C-alpha cells in the first residue's frame, strides 16, 4: 500500500492508505477527524470541504494519495486555545445553522472566499458559496454570518465590540490574511 505523509491541522501524519481511499475517508476513519462530513455521492454538496495548501477542495473528490506531501486544514483546525475562530463565532451569533450538517463545509468555503475577497458583498458571498448546499436555513443567515465575519476579520480587528463601524479602506488579500483565515500553522 502507498505510504503518505500529510500535515493535517498542524500535525504531520504518516500512514499507509489504499489508492482508492478518499481524502475524507482518510480524515474521518484513519485520523478520527469526524468534523468533516460526507453529504452526497456526487461532488455537489460541499459538506466535505477542507483546505489543501490554503485552497478549498471537496475532500470526497480527492484521493488520500493525492494529498501526499500537502497541508490540509479541516474545521477541527480552526479554534485556538478553546476560542472559536471568528468565522465559527459568527455562524453561532447569526444563527447560521439549524441541523448543522452543512456547517463545517460552509465555514471552510467561507474562509476560502474571504482569502480571495476580504469584503464580499451579498451577491459575492452567494456566488462564493455556490458549491455548498444547505437543506435547512434558506441561506439568509449564512450570508449574514459571512459578511459579519468579514468585518470581524479586518486587519487589526480585536474584540468585535471595538470594531462596530467600518473604518479601514478597501484592500486586497495579503499572505498574512491567508494565514489568518486558513487558521495558520502550528506544527
Amino acid at each position, binding site marked *: 500500500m*502507498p505510504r503518505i505523509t500529510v500535515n493535517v491541522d498542524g500535525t504531520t501524519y504518516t500512514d499507509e492508505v*489504499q*489508492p*482508492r*481511499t*478518499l481524502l475524507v*475517508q482518510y480524515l474521518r476513519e484513519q485520523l478520527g477527524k469526524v468534523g468533516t462530513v460526507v453529504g452526497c*455521492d*456526487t*461532488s*455537489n454538496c*460541499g459538506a466535505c*470541504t477542507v483546505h*489543501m495548501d490554503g*485552497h*478549498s*477542495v*471537496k475532500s*470526497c*473528490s*480527492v*484521493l488520500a*494519495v*493525492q494529498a*501526499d506531501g500537502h497541508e490540509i486544514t479541516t474545521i477541527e483546525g480552526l479554534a485556538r486555545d478553546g476560542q472559536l475562530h471568528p468565522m465559527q463565532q459568527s455562524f453561532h451569533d447569526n444563527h447560521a445553522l439549524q441541523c448543522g450538517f452543512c456547517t463545517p463545509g460552509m465555514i471552510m*468555503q467561507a474562509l*476560502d*472566499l474571504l482569502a480571495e475577497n476580504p469584503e464580499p458583498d451579498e451577491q459575492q458571498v452567494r456566488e*462564493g458559496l*455556490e*458549491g*455548498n448546499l444547505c437543506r435547512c436555513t434558506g441561506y439568509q443567515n449564512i450570508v449574514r454570518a459571512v459578511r459579519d465575519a468579514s468585518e470581524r476579520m479586518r486587519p487589526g480587528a480585536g474584540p468585535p465590540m471595538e470594531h462596530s463601524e467600518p473604518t479601514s479602506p478597501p484592500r486586497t488579500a495579503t499572505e498574512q490574511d491567508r494565514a489568518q483565515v486558513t487558521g495558520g500553522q502550528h506544527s
Partner: protein
Amino acid sequence: MIPASFDYIAPTTVEEAMAALDEAGEDAKILAGGQSLLPVLRMRLADPRLVVDLGRVPELRGVRQEGDSLVIGSMTSHHEVLGDPLIREHAKLLALATRTVADPQVRHRGTFGGSLAHADPAGDLPAPALALEADMVIAGSSGRRVVPASEFFVDYFTTALQPNELLVEVRMPHWTGWGAHYEKFNRVAQAWSVVGVAAAVRTEGGAIAEARVGLTNMGPTPVRATGVEQALLGRPATSETIREAARHAAEGTSPTSDASADVDYREHLAEVLTGRALTTAAGA
C-alpha cells in the same frame, strides 16, 4: 460510495506517464483534477486497473507564450486559468467561460486539459477552445501529434485521444484586443450548461471585422456557428446586425431533448444567447 480497488502511479515526467499508459493499455485511466473521474469511480461507472495521476508532472502545468502561440499546459487548473494575466490579455473568452464552470472548490482541482479530454457536451470549455481555434498537442508512444479542436471532439464524451495517449498542452493564437463573452444558461448554481455561447469579436471603426462563435450543448460535440460568423462580417456592430446574424445560430446543430430542455427550446436558446453573447462581446 468508495471506488473499486485500483493500482496507482504518480509519474513526474510525461515519459514516465507514457510508459505506464503503454504497459497498462486500455486498463489504465488518466487522473487529472479528478473532478469528473472521481465521481465516476465512486459510482463505479468505470473500473480501471491502474490510475495514472498527472498531478505531479510539473511540465504539464502553467501558461506561457511561444512565438505566435499562447500555450496552456493540460494540468493548469481552472483557478489558475482565472488568475493568469496572459490568458486575460490574449484569450479573455477562455477566462470568461472558466468563471462559469462549477464552483470554487471544483475550480481549484479541475483542469483545462481534463475538461477538454472529458468532452462532456454540456461542459463549458470545449466551445471556447473551438471558437479560439485551439490545437491539442497529444503525446503517444510514437511521439507527439497536433490535432485541431475542430477534429479533436468526435462524439459524446469521445475525443481523438487513444487510450494510451495523453493531452500535453493546448496552443492557440493570440486573440489580443478581441471583445469576448460567454453566455451560459443553466437552471441552478454550479450546474453545467443547458446551452452556452462563446463569442469573440474584433471590431474596426464601429464595424465587425471578424467574429468567432462556439456553441455548448447543441450537439454531441461543440459546434462553430459559421452562419452567424459570416453574417456579421463587415457589418456595423449594432444590436440590429447582431439580432439578424443570431438567427443563423441553430443552423447545422443537432441538439437532444433531455430533462432540462427540448430540441426546440435549445434552438431558441441558441439564438437568444448568441445575440446576448455577441452584444456584450462587441459592446453594441
